[in-house]
């Protein structure tokens, strides 16, 4: 056995032993508060067993291992339906950015350790009502206030803000310069006076995203994680991390095996649907697409492991996988005919076709819409011209509304 196979076996055995306590069956019927509490205990168990922060430095409580171990663990973990999604964003983007850019190292260390043990959760306050795809168009402002800053404005689509202890935030500190140049990156205490969180109920019935309002929220200057006016670059770093975190060739929907099983178990014109050419065509195409993404992801990890920078093809995953998942989910409902009406709004979108279908549009919009991603590929990878941008180079406060 290679080292990695040994690691996989060790991880699989541990995860198997945790499944009765924290897995899919243990979570059935739990209210969200209880599920979150279970999730915190699971995260602590991971930490104690040496499976939290697998590829993070040991001085921050991590294991000091590589991306391959991390991905190996994740793939095994995914099989059991553990309550880990409350920590996905927290440990995926804000906390790694804090590790990299936080100025008070003792504070950073304390926060990272608490986050790794599931005691604290971080959110990422980027999108605004006036700027989602156009991140640099954001309007929330921070003005100098004594030795620190005062924040006013509104963020939106903030995942898990209602459970978060802290957040990282990009705000405008100078409206008199062009939009990318007037932004600064801070962390904020989500329990501070003036911070108001309001959940937004999404189309599928879930409420894990929020509006977050800032009314005269005062922070000291040591909350700053970028040079004044240098916040956009740090935000882009965050989004680059996101690119390699968000690599599920199933597009965060069900595995193709589940579709194959459905097609084998469903009779169409008196024969198993798996024998129907239309169904076979879609299975074959979806497999080819997913195996291509898997290979891209494996190659990217091998390159990172070897100290190389992976290619831009890593940006294809979300674009290609989520829109395919949307169509495949529609087909899965078609296959079930009127049996497809049945709907459980708490079902997992990784296991249930209706849940996958109704939540798919979120995936095509969050973290860069399909159209924004195509623009990014066209402009940054292929060198095609930028779109006409009337706000380019104009001071933010002079851009026509």
């Amino acid at each position, binding site marked *: 056995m290679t080292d990695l196979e040994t690691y996989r076996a060790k991880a699989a055995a541990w995860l198997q032993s945790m499944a009765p306590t924290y897995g899919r069956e243990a979570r059935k019927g739990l209210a969200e508060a209880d599920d979150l509490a279970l999730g915190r205990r699971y995260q602590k168990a991971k930490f104690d067993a040496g499976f939290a922060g697998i590829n993070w430095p040991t001085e921050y409580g991590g294991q000091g291992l590589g991306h391959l171990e991390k991905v190996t663990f994740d793939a095994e973990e995914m099989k059991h339906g553990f309550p880990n999604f409350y920590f996905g964003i927290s440990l995926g983007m804000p906390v790694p950015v804090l590790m990299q850019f936080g100025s008070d190292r003792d504070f950073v260390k304390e926060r990272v350790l608490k986050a790794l043990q599931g005691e604290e959760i971080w959110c990422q306050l980027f999108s605004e009502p006036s700027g989602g795809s156009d991140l640099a168009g954001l309007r929330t402002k921070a003005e100098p206030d004594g030795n620190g800053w005062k924040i006013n404005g509104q963020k939106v689509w903030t995942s898990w803000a209602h459970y978060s202890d802290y957040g990282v935030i990009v705000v405008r500190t100078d409206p008199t310069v062009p939009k990318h140049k007037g932004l600064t990156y801070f962390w904020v205490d989500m329990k501070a006076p003036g911070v108001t969180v309001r959940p937004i109920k999404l189309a599928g019935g879930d409420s894990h995203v929020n509006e977050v309002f800032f009314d005269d929220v005062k922070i000291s200057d040591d909350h700053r994680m970028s040079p004044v006016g240098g916040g956009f670059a740090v935000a882009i770093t965050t989004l680059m991390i996101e690119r390699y975190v968000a690599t599920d060739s199933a597009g965060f929907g069900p595995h*193709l*095996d589940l579709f*194959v*099983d459905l*097609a*084998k178990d469903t009779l169409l014109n008196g024969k198993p649907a*798996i024998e129907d050419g239309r169904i*076979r*065509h879609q*299975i*074959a*195409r979806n*497999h*080819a*697409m997913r*195996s*291509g*993404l*898997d*290979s*891209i992801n*494996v*190659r990217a990890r*091998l*390159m990172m492991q*070897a100290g190389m920078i992976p*290619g831009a*093809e890593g940006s*294809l995953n979300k*674009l*290609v996988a989520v829109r395919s998942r949307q169509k495949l989910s529609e087909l899965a409902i078609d296959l079930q005919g009127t049996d497809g009406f049945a709907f459980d709004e708490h079902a997992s979108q990784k296991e249930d076709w209706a849940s996958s279908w109704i939540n798919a549009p979120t995936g095509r919009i969050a973290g860069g819409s399909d*159209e924004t991603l*195509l*623009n990014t*590929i*066209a*402009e940054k*990878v*292929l*060198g*095609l*011209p*930028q*779109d*006409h941008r009337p706000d380019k180079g104009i001071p933010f406060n002079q851009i026509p509304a």
Partner: protein
Amino acid sequence: MTILYDEGQQAIATESRRVLEARISKDALLPLLESVGDYHRPFWDTAKEQGWTALALPEAHDGLGLGLIELGLIAHQAGRSLSGAPFLTSGFGAAKAIELYGSDAQKAHWLPKLAWGESIGAIAFAAGPDALPAQPDVTYTDDQLSGIARGVSGGLAADVAIVLANGSGMPVLALVDLSGAERIAVPSFDNSRCVANLSFAGAKAETLAVGSAARDAALHILALQAVVTAHEQTGGAEVLMEIARDYALTRRAFGQPIGAFQSVKHRIAELYGLVELARANCIHAASREGAADFITAAAAARLSATEAYDTAARDCVQIHGGIGVTWDLGLHLHMRRARSLAIEQGSSLFWEDVLVDRLAGEAA
């Protein structure tokens, strides 16, 4: 096997690109379209001179002992440059059939000739829409082949063929010296493929495999060739994406480069996605030779590469507008090649079935 190319492999990619770009031009390829039976001799001479014919064959028989990954890199460049003959893939398939299923005498006789490119090999499995027919048109009786194998790429020039034949109701994989066959040229939209109907009337043949083993062997050979062809298709798709990009940067309309319009730039960005998925599947499939999931990986590579090349041919011409459909610009060379490669080694319909049969088995 790792899917990161090592330095030697990268050198193969760089050197084959340099050589082929220097020696192949559309001006040499366009006239071949209008004559039946000719191929681009400088391409084939280059393949022999550079050792590409020997690349993936065993050292014991004058090969270089490399594998699918290295041959795939050559094929990728052959796709970019529009290879002038189909023999690199067909000869590889024929040689692998002899290497894997032939006798010592057959290997000793044919493999060095194929490795040196002195002999050209061809594969004759298909009967029209059926890539691996249960009842092939060619029959095998008493060490002799009879009947017609239709649409054999390279058949007009080949010296030896591997034929899937019907031996009294049982499939037979047969090796036949084509000196005893009649070749009937098939005029095609891509004439340098040298497509022929091979007509046998009691041609002397030798068996490589019989019964279900013959069918398994034929599928394996087809999969090996499909991986090589998928690389070639990906190379073609990649170069068309680049041509489309370059044109969109220079051609202006309505006061700006047409690449600034999202309808055009998104179309090219979508091509990038198709090319990268095909490339990733190709690299993966080439690294799985000998593994249990090789056929599945080959099918995925084949499907995504066919889609990439066809779509790139369609869209690259569309982005060019009127100039794109002219004879002289030559984009139709890629349109034609995309379709020839799509129907050689089994079409997408065939590989979809192969793939789903396997996935359905695994998901049981």
